[in-house]
């Protein structure tokens, strides 16, 4: 099944002072795939996400979304082009209710009355319509992660970056979240997930990108990645040994 790339990274680099957080990272994301992004802590996964959505500006290379270079665009412009992300530490507006948290994303493409309808539909999509009027700060962690997903969905993205949405979920919740991600892909969304849980990554992803110290280690099918000697040395070896 040859799929055209929706996103291309070409030699992307990002430096913070003396730290080279990303160096010469190049890979493609195929339209409609679920791509896993793995690597030890500090490998640059979250930095990569932040650079993709424009919260950091890449200082080398190009990021092409459907052929258009995103480098230098502000996050709201990139969101309008159809690329958004969730936040690893959950960045909800805690003092407002769940629905209002999602409405803000729906306002990107719709005026207010309709944005509320769309937002409610997104909450339904993630299974949270029943708590639409709860205060976001009162939610459990798994619920917050879902609200994050709903808010991202409300911007009607083509591509969605999920930063550890399965962290702190139990096995049942994790399975539900994986079902949701698969369903979103079935709707035509392209998804990149950062996760530490290797079983989830293996079960969920079509392909995997491995990073270490800001460099690309390997790209391939899940089976290839787990056997890749560099990946085993840098990441899996240690993880499996524990």
């Amino acid at each position: 099944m040859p799929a055209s790339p929706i996103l291309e990274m070409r030699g992307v680099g990002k430096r913070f002072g003396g730290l080279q957080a990303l160096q010469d990272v190049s890979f493609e994301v195929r339209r409609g795939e679920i791509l896993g992004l793995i690597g030890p802590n500090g490998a640059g996964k979250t930095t990569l996400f932040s650079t993709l959505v424009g919260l950091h500006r890449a200082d080398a290379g190009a990021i092409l979304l459907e052929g258009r270079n995103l480098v230098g665009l502000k996050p709201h412009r990139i969101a309008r082009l159809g690329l958004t992300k969730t936040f690893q530490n959950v960045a909800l507006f805690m003092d407002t209710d769940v629905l209002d948290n999602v409405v803000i994303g729906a306002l990107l493409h719709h005026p207010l009355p309709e944005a509320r309808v769309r937002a409610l539909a997104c909450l339904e999509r993630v299974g949270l319509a029943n708590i639409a009027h709860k205060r976001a700060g009162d939610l459990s962690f798994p619920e917050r992660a879902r609200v994050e997903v709903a808010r991202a969905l409300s911007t009607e993205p083509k591509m969605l970056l999920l930063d550890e949405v399965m962290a702190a979920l139990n096995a049942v919740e994790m399975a539900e979240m994986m079902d949701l991600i698969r369903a979103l892909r079935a709707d035509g969304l392209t998804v990149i997930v950062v996760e530490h849980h290797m079983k989830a990554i293996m079960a969920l992803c079509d392909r995997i990108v491995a990073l270490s110290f800001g460099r690309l280690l390997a790209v391939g099918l899940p089976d290839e990645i787990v056997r890749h000697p560099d990946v085993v040395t840098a990441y899996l070896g240690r993880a499996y040994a524990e």
Partner: protein
Amino acid sequence: MPVAAIAAALIVPLGLDGDGYAIRVIALVFLFAALGQSWNIVGGLANQISLGHAAFFGIGAYTSTRLLIDFGLSPWFGMLAGGVLGGAAAALISLPTMRLRGHYFALATLAFGEVMRVVANAWTGLTGGPVGISVPYSAPGLWMLSFKGTLPFYYLNLTALVGVTAVFVGIRRSAFGYRLQAVREDANAAEVVGVDTARIKIQAAVISGALTAMLGTLYAQMNFFFDPDAVFGAAPISVRIALIAIVGGIGTAAGPILGAILIVSLEEIANVLLSGQVAGLSNLVYGLILIAVIMIQPHGLVALGPVFRRPWRVPAVDAAK
């Protein structure tokens, strides 16, 4: 409740001396409540604590007064011109300051207000300098915003307060209000889901600055005379406006109104009771009371709870009991 409050405010003067002290104090409460409400658009909805709103207030006061002196122009046009200049000044200052957070934003805006005060004191050709400037006498009437007594300003200030409050409530319920509140909660998260945070902040600053400047015209017409320290001053204007909103309840429509009632009346009481005996003691007492309010109820007077809120929102509930 808002309707009842407005009705009460309309009726109150009937029992008072139209040129008396009480009417003047209440008129000041309305003016400062309106200023607190304009400030609330930036300070409350976006949580950018400006301590420089005197800059816009002074621009408004001097613009209309200058146009009146030099061209005999009606203060209503002066108010519009002042609003435009105040909005433009707010846009200019928000460009370099909007990335600043918390104390840094407060300090930068405080410095901006002080710079305006110093410039106004030095630029005597325009402002009259420290000697002050007199608003020329016009034949009494609404067109020239000139009256013999205080009562017309009571009603004008009340109208301004209702108008600015309506703007605040309208913004808070609009898509723009959603975006402002998202910027307040988490600017990065707001950007990533499509909010142009820079544009939103500038728009809010322009609306807030323009309204503040327009209220400056009302102040000038009501006082006949003012100097740079009175309209550009940090303590009498910038800090006072911010405190009124913060003490009353930041980000709420009722907050600046409650705050203005408390602070303006406290100041008057302190002045009457204390200033004759020990100069400066009134400011100290005023400061202590503010500290007490902020420590005891950091969310402001509106958070005092059901006492204030229930009858405001659902009078039917109490009536049914």
